[in-house]
C-alpha cells in the first residue's frame, strides 16, 4: 500500500522530519534508452488507465538525413491524424500543418548531427468521449541552423490510449543514446 498521508499530530518531542506525502502529481511509467545497435521504433505498451494525463519526453539522435519524430497511438498507422505547428527558425516564423495523415509529427525535423528534444502532453488520454489532442514543445539548435516549435497532433479516435509508438517519419533508426520517457500525471 502506498503512503498517501503523513501527520505529526499527537507527536511528542522535538525531533521529527517533515516528509511530503502529496508529491503524487507525476509518476514515471516507463523509459527506454536506445543501445549501440539503434532502434527503428520505441513502443510503450500496456499503459495503465489510472492517470489523468500523459507526458512523453524525448531526446533523439540519428545518423543521417532530416527526420521528424512521429507518435502513433494504439498501433494506429492509418491516416487518422492531423498536425499543426507554429515555428521559428531564428530568422523567420510560420505556421503550417497536415490533415488526415499517418505522420503524427510531435517534433521538428532536425538534421543529422543534431539532437532534437520534445515534451509532449496528452490530456484525458483515457477518456472515451474525446479524440486525443497532443501538445508538444520541441526544437533543436545546430550552432547556426535550428528550429523551435509548438506542435499539436490530433488522433481521431475516442479509444483510450493504451500504447504509444515513436519512430522517425523517414524510417531511419534512432541512434544510440536516444531516450524516451513516459510519465503519468494524476488528476
Amino acid at each position, binding site marked *: 500500500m502506498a503512503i498517501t498521508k503523513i501527520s505529526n499530530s499527537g507527536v511528542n518531542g522535538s525531533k521529527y522530519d517533515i516528509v511530503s506525502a502529496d508529491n503524487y*502529481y507525476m509518476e514515471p511509467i516507463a523509459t527506454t534508452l536506445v543501445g549501440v545497435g539503434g532502434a527503428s521504433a520505441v513502443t510503450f505498451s500496456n499503459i495503465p488507465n489510472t492517470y489523468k494525463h500523459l507526458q512523453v519526453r524525448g531526446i533523439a539522435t540519428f545518423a543521417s538525413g532530416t527526420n521528424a519524430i512521429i507518435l502513433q497511438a494504439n498501433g494506429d498507422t492509418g491516416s487518422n491524424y492531423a498536425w499543426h505547428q*507554429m515555428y521559428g527558425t531564428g530568422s523567420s516564423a510560420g505556421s503550417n500543418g497536415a490533415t488526415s495523415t499517418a505522420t503524427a509529427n510531435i517534433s521538428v525535423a532536425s538534421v543529422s548531427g543534431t539532437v532534437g528534444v520534445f515534451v509532449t502532453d496528452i490530456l*484525458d488520454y483515457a477518456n472515451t468521449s474525446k479524440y486525443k489532442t497532443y501538445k508538444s514543445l520541441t526544437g533543436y539548435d545546430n550552432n547556426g541552423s535550428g528550429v523551435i516549435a509548438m506542435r499539436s497532433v490530433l488522433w*481521431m479516435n475516442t479509444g483510450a490510449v493504451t500504447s504509444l509508438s515513436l519512430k522517425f517519419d523517414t524510417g531511419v533508426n534512432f541512434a544510440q543514446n536516444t531516450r524516451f520517457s513516459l510519465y503519468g500525471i494524476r*488528476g
Partner: protein
Amino acid sequence: MAFTYSKLAEVTVGASSVSSITINNIPQNYTDLKLVYSGRNSAAGAGIDLYISFNGSTANLTVKRIHGTGSSVASYSGTTGDIGVDDGASQTVSTFSNMEVYIPNYTSSTSKSYSADAVQENNATGAYAQLSAGLWSNNTAITSITLTPYSGSIVQYTTVTLYGVKAEV
C-alpha cells in the same frame, strides 16, 4: 526538501454546457498554481478564445500573445486574460483543446503574472497554437480562478484540473 504538485480541484462539465468555470476557495499555502484544461465550445466558430480572470474581476488584465493559425503567424496585445482557443462546433467532432497555465507566486502582495501554452486541433488547415504572457495588476492574493469563453458555452467532457505547487523554503 522541495515539494511538488498537489491537486487542488478538478472540474468536469456535464451534459449541460456552462457559460464559465470557476474554482473558488483556493488554498493559500502553496507557492505557484498550475491549471490544465481540455475544452470545447458550443459556438459555431473556427475557434473560440478562452479567458482567465481572478477573484471575480475581469479588470486590470493585460496580455501579449503569439499564435499560429495553421497557415500564418501573428502577435497580439490586449486587455484580457487570453490563454488560448477552444474548438468550436464547426470544427472536427470530439476534438478538445489542450492548454496549460502557470501562475507563480499567486499569493504575493504584488501584481500576478501568468504564462500559458495552448493548442487547438482540427482536421483542416485552420488550427491555433498560442503562447501567452499575461498580467493581473492587482496586489491581492488569488483566491479564485474563472475561465470564460469569448462566446458560446463550454461543453460536456471539458475538464479543468488545478494543481498547487509548493516549495519548502
